[in-house]
């Protein structure tokens, strides 16, 4: 029986006899700015589109105010400035919690991200509760969307914004529930997307507050 000679590639050679292989090229340095994937780009296009729609509303409101400064001043005086300011502080703080959540989830600290999203949701609930209370006070005082142009804009703009708050809360709730599951119930990009949407909700209110509550005060 002849002994079979092993083929060269089957030989186990000591390391110093292994054929030379060029070391793999060093990884390319990360780009200065992160590139967006298709989903993130789509989300941003939607966000900017929504912001542009609100921008048109802001411009229309400012344009209409020029001819009715007295009406706008008397109407703005009836709004609850303190509640509007407090709601602004709540949304700004909620945005900070969203920043915590997105940074925590990116660092794979899901418990911290879940806690931050819960804090955001509580802020959102408080905002919505105060806004509805404010509507109740205004409506019971006889101010409705038909009272004058200021109140038409006030109820339409804050109403559309409140709808955005509700949508944002739904997204944050899905993200929060996903983060609480043991095995990856929600992706990092979903949490980031919900976070960007919530920042937009905050950002729009930050313009609505001075435009409606402050700018026309006598």
């Amino acid at each position, binding site marked *: 029986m002849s002994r079979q000679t092993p083929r060269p590639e089957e030989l186990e050679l000591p390391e110093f006899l292994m054929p030379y292989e060029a070391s793999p090229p060093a990884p390319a340095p990360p780009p200065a700015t992160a590139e967006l994937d298709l989903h993130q780009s789509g989300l941003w296009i939607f966000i900017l589109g929504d*912001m542009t729609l609100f921008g048109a509303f802001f411009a229309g409101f400012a344009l209409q105010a020029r001819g009715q400064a007295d009406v706008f001043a008397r109407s703005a005086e009836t709004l609850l*400035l303190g509640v509007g*300011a407090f709601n602004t502080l709540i949304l700004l703080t909620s945005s900070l919690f969203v920043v915590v959540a997105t940074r925590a989830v990116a660092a794979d600290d899901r418990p911290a991200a879940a806690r931050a999203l819960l804090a955001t949701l509580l802020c959102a609930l408080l905002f919505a509760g105060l806004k509805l209370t404010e509507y109740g006070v205004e409506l019971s005082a006889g101010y409705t969307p038909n009272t004058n142009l200021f109140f038409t804009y006030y109820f339409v703009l804050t109403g559309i914004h409140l709808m955005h708050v509700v949508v944002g809360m739904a997204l944050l709730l899905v993200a929060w529930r996903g983060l609480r599951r043991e095995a990856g119930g929600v992706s990092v990009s979903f949490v980031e997307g919900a976070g960007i949407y919530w920042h937009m909700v905050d950002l729009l209110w930050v313009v609505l*507050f001075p435009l409606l509550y402050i700018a026309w005060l006598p």
Partner: protein
Amino acid sequence: MMRHLTTRLWGVWLMLMLATLFSAWTAADGLPGGAGMPAAALAVAVGFAKVWLIGMHFMALRDAPPWLRSLFNAWSLVVGGGVTLLILL
């Protein structure tokens, strides 16, 4: 939980909160320089400055691709500047 925040982010949040409190306080006490279009325009311009801070720091647009950062800057400038001018003129 809050250890994920940097000093910069805390600083931006504090600035936004103080700007809001200052706006509300001056509005309650009468707008600076009295009522009128300049005071109204200033209040709205401060609002848009806050928007820009939220975008750059909270939405992390300072690290975003240039096309996105440019679009956001353009929105802030065109809408913020446009609304402020509409109030002033």
